[in-house]
């Protein structure tokens, strides 16, 4: 009967596990959200664990929307304390939060992230772009003589003779990425407006929403490829396609300068300086959101938040800036807000 005994005791152990675990609590900070903020959050978490007596926070990725969704699931130890986001929280998300009882939310801006356009280091001379060119290269339909026609441009030289006569092959972030929205608004829509196409489309559709939609529609005939994975996937595609141009985060580019060559946008070279002054047009703020109700309940949460925005970390000479974050000129105001636990 020894097997019976074994089986019974195993079942007893599993039953005991369930009882023990139902009284679980945790003593570490739990973070989820944007994969763009992930490297910064893990750098801070690592330094926090080294220098403080608290456990190292656990940082998950999964995207801004997924992170905020989990953030808004409610208050309690089995919910996350901090959501990282590469865009501001939406009103609909705040409503979802409020419905689940998450009312006091602290918004913390950690700095800015630049979005750069890069191609294979030994590839064609893609060194200078404008938003107009990107719009004309990637729009689904272009206005020609008072009618919308499918984008006829096959090569970059068709778009602008100053560009190399290479087939258009763009690798842009997929729709689940926060980067896609910035790309659509700051590059495609801006290009649509500055090239005068917006007025022409307005004349055709005479409807504002339809015009915006037509401006931001990206062609689907294979010249533009959505990348749903991370920048590593974009890099692999660029490696395989000498005439490909990819959209990357500044930090990713700065860690791969031996493989990629970056292009200027509107004549401005992307760098932490040009982005912090606002000269470089394609950048966005990075945030994290903190549940105020968890401060004082989860050990180390307040300390971690303060440490994240401290000059040692997020300052212009700190490790985050070294990795590629454009530090926030108004960091001091953020530090005060965090110290006062100011909510939205």
């Amino acid at each position: 009967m020894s097997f019976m005994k074994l089986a019974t005791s195993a079942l007893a152990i599993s039953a005991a596990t369930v009882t023990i675990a139902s009284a679980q609590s945790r003593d570490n900070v739990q973070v989820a959200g944007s994969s763009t903020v992930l490297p910064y959050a893990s750098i801070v978490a690592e330094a926090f664990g080294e220098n403080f007596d608290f456990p190292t926070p656990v940082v998950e990725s999964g995207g801004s929307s997924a992170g905020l969704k989990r953030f808004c699931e409610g208050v309690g130890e089995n919910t996350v304390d901090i959501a990282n986001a590469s865009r501001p929280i939406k009103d609909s998300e705040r409503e979802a939060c409020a419905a689940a009882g998450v009312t006091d939310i602290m918004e913390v801006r950690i700095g800015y992230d630049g979005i750069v356009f890069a191609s294979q280091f030994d590839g064609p001379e893609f060194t200078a772009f404008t938003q107009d060119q990107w719009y004309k290269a990637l729009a689904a339909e272009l206005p020609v003589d008072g009618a919308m026609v499918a984008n006829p441009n096959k090569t970059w030289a068709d778009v602008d003779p100053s560009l190399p006569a290479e087939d258009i092959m763009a690798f842009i972030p997929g729709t689940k990425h926060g980067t896609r929205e910035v790309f659509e608004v700051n590059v495609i829509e801006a290009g649509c407006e500055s090239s005068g196409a917006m007025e022409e489309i307005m004349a055709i559709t005479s409807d504002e929403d339809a015009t915006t939609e037509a401006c931001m529609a990206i062609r689907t005939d294979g010249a533009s490829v959505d990348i749903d994975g991370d920048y590593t996937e974009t890099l692999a595609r660029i490696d395989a396609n000498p005439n490909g141009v990819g959209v990357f985060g500044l930090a990713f580019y700065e860690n791969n300068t031996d493989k990629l060559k970056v292009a200027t946008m509107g004549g401005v070279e992307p760098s932490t300086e040009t982005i912090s002054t606002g000269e470089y047009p394609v950048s966005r703020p990075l945030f994290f959101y903190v549940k105020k109700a968890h401060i004082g309940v989860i050990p180390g949460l307040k300390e971690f938040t303060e440490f994240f925005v401290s000059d040692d970390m997020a300052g212009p000479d700190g490790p985050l800036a070294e990795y590629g974050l454009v530090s926030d000129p108004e960091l001091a105001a953020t530090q005060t807000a965090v110290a006062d636990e100011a909510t939205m």
Partner: protein
Amino acid sequence: MTKSLYTEDARTKRRNAAERRFKAYGAIAIGIAMVALVILLTSVVSQGIGAFRQTYITIDVPLPEAKLDKSGTRDMAVMSKVTTIGYAPLLRDGLVNAIAEAGIQTDLSDKEIGDLISKEAPATVRDRVLANPDLIGGTDRFTLLADGRIDGYFKGRVTMASAALDKNTSPGKLELADKLRDAGIMNVKFNWAFLTAPDASDQRPEAAGLGVAILGSLYMMIVVLVLALPIGVAASIYLEEFAPKNRWTDVIEVNIANLAAVPSIVYGILGLAIFINFMQFNQSSPLVGGMVLALMTLPTIIISTRAALKAVPPSIRDAALGVGASKMQSVFHHVLPLAAPGILTGTIIGLAQALGETAPLLLIGMVAFVRDYPEAYSSATGLFGDPSTALPVQIYNWTQRADPAFVERAQGAIITLLVFLLVMNTVAIILRRRFERRW
């Protein structure tokens, strides 16, 4: 008119040719599979083997009291105020001194020389100083990690040409690294830390290891074994030996076979809904991960256990029943021991499957950056309740990192996972060979 059987007629020739063709197809199929395997292994091993070697710098680091203990009383509260950011300059001084002592000429500034040391190193020094406050005021010899780019240079990943384009290093630094290696200050050693150290952030690929992931996978396998084996075996014994054969057991049988083919991510969704949201277990914990994987492994174990029980000849049962054993005695004394090798094999194969599974763990928060070793039991988090990662998840995680050095780490982790799987499958085959009986 007689014809020898040895002379082939046209029809025989055709049949023999068809057989030869079939054999050739088979050989080609196996050949393709072998070539694919060889290409896969060569690419993984050639890229990943570097992760098992690591560059270290051995230097004397000055530990001045003025910097590290302003109170002068070795008060822990004051000493721990000095962060790793405060320790970094001391390491740089140590390396600059070592370069001067060895008589090496270099044009690099002190700051650039400091870049040769890993960002992980100040934490190594700080931990030792806080553990032994008596060291303050003197110097001590430390073996510290070198920067990931320097390490990459010795492994051939970084070259002078790529360094010239790379803003994180420069050819000058690589030349200095060469000189340091000749002087014996820098050397490449076997990297035990890769198997024991926790994960590290994007700035320190050289420090990243699999410690937390291996521990997390081990805990999950224990949970899977403890939950899935007894439940699976009990269910199979009942279904195979005791349950009446009727419509209900048919339905159950079809469902079990179906469950074995359900995509694993579905179990993750189930785990999130039931174990985390409803039963309130901790996210990212090996307990939840193990329970989800146990559910996933159950059908595999049930199917293989039932096959093993079926393989035991009915004469054994009849003989036991014939000498007066009860039904239960015949099963537990005679049938189960004979079926045990088959059950074990099935269980080990199920465990190996669970060990390599990533998808369900995505949803329960195990795809995370975790630095602290999970404890098997702690009063705050309960049994297996500490956050952790797992081996396949760590591979997935590292392939997404920006620094190219993580490619090597990810491939190294694949080698480690393959070795674990190979060992488990070998054990399964040995068990089967040694204990299997044929009738």
